[in-house]
């Protein structure tokens, strides 16, 4: 019996009359890197948003590490161990890179109101340790400097790296990456793929990513799941998926097949 970190059953989300995710069953094995692919509007980000509590599913269940997370607020789900990035970078643009990462540590820190006002030794120590850890995370994620610069003024690639650092700061078991290589050149993409593998190995994470770039999917993921119009149309190893007719059809249109 495989060890599933995520077990989604019959997940359904309707917006008005439109079904965004249609009774999806889905599992992620602990320690694996899984890709979620599909054409535009297939419901991938909606799926992520349900996983992280941004949307309430219409029906269905999501077990994360054995805990039902449907109905939990986003911050509680994050505290359980799901960290994420966003498709359109959503950094706190006017905070420094370091502060962005510190916000990610919010649920791991404990400084209260009075402690913060009086800067008790405990809070002081915690803050210092958090800053130290945040700097390490930034360096680890490929941002060795510019920690005090406003996140919004960083170059695009650095912003993507910062988002990952911020997600890692939540101390996740599962890392959700929403089109992390969008806008990167092939060189950067290759570095990023290596980085994702390294993170997975060194931090014992499980990674679930949404990706458009087939090269990334093939290069990094051990399994992929294909969505189309809110439904799961295929699942398997990248090689299997690549030769699946329905997938080719979904991606390239009917004429491309046979």
């Amino acid at each position, binding site marked *: 019996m495989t060890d599933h970190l995520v077990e989604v059953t019959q997940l359904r989300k309707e917006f008005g009359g439109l079904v965004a995710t249609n009774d999806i069953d889905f599992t992620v094995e602990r320690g694996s890197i899984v890709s979620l692919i599909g054409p535009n509007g297939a419901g991938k980000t909606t799926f992520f948003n349900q996983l992280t509590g941004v949307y309430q599913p219409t029906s269905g269940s999501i077990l994360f590490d054995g805990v039902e997370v449907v109905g939990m607020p986003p911050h509680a789900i994050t505290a359980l161990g799901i960290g994420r990035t966003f498709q359109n970078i*959503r950094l706190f643009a*006017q905070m420094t890179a370091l502060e962005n990462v510190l916000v990610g540590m919010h*649920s791991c820190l404990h400084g209260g109101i009075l402690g913060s006002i009086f800067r008790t030794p405990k*809070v002081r120590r915690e803050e210092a340790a958090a800053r130290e850890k945040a700097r390490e995370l930034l360096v680890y994620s490929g941002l060795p400097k510019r920690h005090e610069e406003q996140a919004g003024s960083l170059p695009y690639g650095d912003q993507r790296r910062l988002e990952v650092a911020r997600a890692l700061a939540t101390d996740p078991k599962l890392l959700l990456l929403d089109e992390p290589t969008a806008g990167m050149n092939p060189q950067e993409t290759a570095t990023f793929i290596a980085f994702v593998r390294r993170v997975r190995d060194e931090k014992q994470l499980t990674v679930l990513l949404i990706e458009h770039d087939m090269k990334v999917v093939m290069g990094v993921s051990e399994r992929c799941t294909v969505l189309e119009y809110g439904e799961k149309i295929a699942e398997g190893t990248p090689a299997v998926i690549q030769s699946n007719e329905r997938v080719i059809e979904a991606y390239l249109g009917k004429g491309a097949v046979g």
Partner: protein
Amino acid sequence: MTGLRHRAWSAAGNRNTVAVVVLLVLALIYPTIVGSLQLVPVIGDFVPKTDSMVVMVVFTTMAIGLNMVVGYAGLLDLGYVAFYAVGAYTAGWFASQQFSQVSIDFGAAGIPDGLPGIHISMWLVLPVAGALTMLAGTAIGIPTLRLRGDYLAIVTLGFGEIVPQVVRNADNVYGFDLTHGTFGITPIDSLGFGAVGAALGLPESFRQSSDRAQWYFWFAVVILLITVFCSVRLRDSRLGRAWIAIREDETAAAAMGVPLMRTKTWAYAIGAFFGGVAGAFYASFKGGAFPADFYFNISVFLLCMVILGGVGSVWGVILGGMLLSYLNVEGLANIGSTIQATGLAFDPTKYQFGIYGSIIVLMMLFRPAGLIPERRHRVEMEEGVHDTPFYDVQREGTLTDRDGSDD
């Protein structure tokens, strides 16, 4: 690199310390020198009396409190006056003859023995008022803070209107006089050093001493300093970071583990605390709490201080607060008499809220970050932010929502 930055930081820190010390010395000597300042030709007419300075400092304290809600957490509160009211009435309940059914004296300064009513020492009443106001803020916040920004604004405005109407009408709650209706509660006890202070040659009660304004002024400054201190410390803490994160992007903040409701409620409650303390202090200075003091315009007046000074910027809000409350208590009248001396029949005090309104509009249009912008806010106000609210009652569950986030 890091060393340099450390030095830059501490240089900024030193500058702040110097500024604080200079201002403190000025505050200390102000009551003594104000008389001579007023004799200076031309500008002397515009030097505020110590009495006016008390009011200015108290309103600035409220503006600092409001700044935590509006500036840090980005929650537009249009009913801050409600907190001022709760603070003032708390002082009325615990330090006046309002409840003359009983006679309680607990360390009150300058109160004759056996005076009816509850007379708790005003020094104790100040934090109690803060705490009660904090409770009120939490009670208001819990049902409403999940609303998106503009709805929150209108609901807080609603509370700001309900509270004064309640105090106005609560002079007969099933026969019990809670607020003394439109007459308000007066007199409210004075602050003072009590019998112990009197033995040391300090005034037993500020109100009965000849230096009433001076003592109130000094302690108003102390309260302002404490408020500023807490405000700065909180801004630079875990909680402050969470506030600013929420202000910039609620969804991302929630995804990073920031509990939205709790964090917003704290902003609201802490902002309320200082509003309550300032309200109680002011009630003691004025010697009363009157329902006519708590109208919508005061909330906008405070908001105007925050906007003029610079949303989120502590130094800015102090400047904006002192400037506008000066205009309010004395400045406009002084300017008016200067204008009228030239023969023009124009009274700027009549149009004070039009003036504040114009300041708000002009600032938003031409200098949205305020006179002294907050370091990070500057960019935000000029470039705009990605601030789709998380609890979006309008669009949640609609097609646009999905289109916006999924492609």
